[in-house]
């Protein structure tokens, strides 16, 4: 496998997904496609030569020539604040990738037809959305998406449309702080009951992908293991610090 070189990416379009998250469509001349779940490294360089790198999950289904990332602005984020605030169509950044050969669907070692459970916390939806978008067959997918409130849900209109139009896709929201009008479910953190009701039974041996903040992923992965899911069928991607003592 060859070297992953830095490539110039031109911002082709920017869509605001929520007040703090934006999707950037990047045109990359040499982009040779990717796998759903992979990420890219982004490098920004200032006029004085200072540069900063961060990794972002790819949001788009595999395609050649372009790639989409969705960036959640984080407090004091020098790169996220630029990408989801200052960048405009026509601006140029550098990316290299795609990166990562494990947190991908279909899974790297076969069994791509097994049912899939996706569990997202906040902006952890991004690589899971690439999987939803990449799903062209009938592999049954269930997505459980935990957000603070309805205004924080990224891709909500597209997910509603796909639930209506794509066969075999179910989406369940978990609201931790505030629910939309007319919501009859509970408000609070994902628990074993919600995972059992909206996920797959462990007997179905689903491929499970969990992505979100560290505390969320730790909790969900522990609950899934306790519910009988095999640890090596649970792929995780965590971001941010531990909840307790740093």
């Amino acid at each position, binding site marked *: *496998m060859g*070297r992953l070189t830095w490539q110039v990416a031109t911002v082709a379009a920017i869509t605001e997904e929520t007040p703090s998250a934006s999707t950037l469509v990047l045109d990359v001349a040499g982009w040779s496609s990717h796998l759903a779940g992979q990420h890219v490294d982004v490098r920004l360089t200032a006029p004085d030569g200072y540069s900063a790198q961060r990794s972002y999950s790819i949001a788009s289904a595999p395609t050649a020539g372009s790639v989409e990332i969705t960036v959640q602005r984080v407090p004091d984020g020098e790169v996220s604040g630029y990408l989801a605030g200052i*960048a405009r169509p026509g601006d140029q950044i550098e990316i290299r990738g795609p990166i990562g*050969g494990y947190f991908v669907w279909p899974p790297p070692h076969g069994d791509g037809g097994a049912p899939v459970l996706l569990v997202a916390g906040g902006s952890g939806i991004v690589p899971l959305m690439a999987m939803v978008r990449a799903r062209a067959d009938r592999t049954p997918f269930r997505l459980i998406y935990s957000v603070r409130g309805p205004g924080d849900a990224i891709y909500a209109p597209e997910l509603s449309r796909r639930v209506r139009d794509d066969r075999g896709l179910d989406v369940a929201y978990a609201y931790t702080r505030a629910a939309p009008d007319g919501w009859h479910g509970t408000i609070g953190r994902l628990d074993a009951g919600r995972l059992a009701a909206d996920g797959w039974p462990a007997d179905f041996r689903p491929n499970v992908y969990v992505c979100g903040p560290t505390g969320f992923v730790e909790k969900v992965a522990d609950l899934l293991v306790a519910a009988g899911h095999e*640890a090596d069928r649970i792929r995780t991607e*965590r971001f941010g610090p531990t909840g307790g003592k740093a």
Partner: protein
Amino acid sequence: MPVISRGFTGRTRRDVELPPGQYLTEDFPVLSAGPTPRIDRDRWEFAVITDAGKRHQWTWSQLLALPSEQVTVDLHCVTKWSKLGTQWRGVALDTLLEDVESAADYAYVHAYGGYTTNLPLADLLDGQAWVAYEYDDEPLDAEHGGPARLLVPHLYLWKSAKWVRSIELTHDDQPGFWETAGYHNYGDPWQEQRYWGD
């Protein structure tokens, strides 16, 4: 020449020298490919298996009975964060390998939960690596690799296998978990050896 991104200024420049492409964090992020294994210290054991097939084994209490060292080291994760001046207590691999006879050149590291990683045996020796069981004077949390993790701070942090279980000494280099999934076989942060071909 890198492309200049219009309107990007970046944060205030810092005085500390970091490996290329890294940024400083005060947090302690967690990167793991799957659920966190929970290992009972009563059942924990650590083994070194030589190229001749000889097994050297330590229980938890045997590990704690070995001379330990307090070390302060900088951590560099391939996901770009660096954390400086972290404090650990553990047993140096020099100590664990003292009575181990081997002609091996490589080490293949196994962890509870199935994770693996590989590195040259020389990188585990001469005060460069520990089996660490305390972080900041506290028992190491499971999220960060407790009961005990390998600590090899001069390489990217994925080489410092959490939940370390055994080290196989081998004549041939065998790529581990991330090393087969696109990440660099050696992983020197100062050479920015992140991915295959770097």
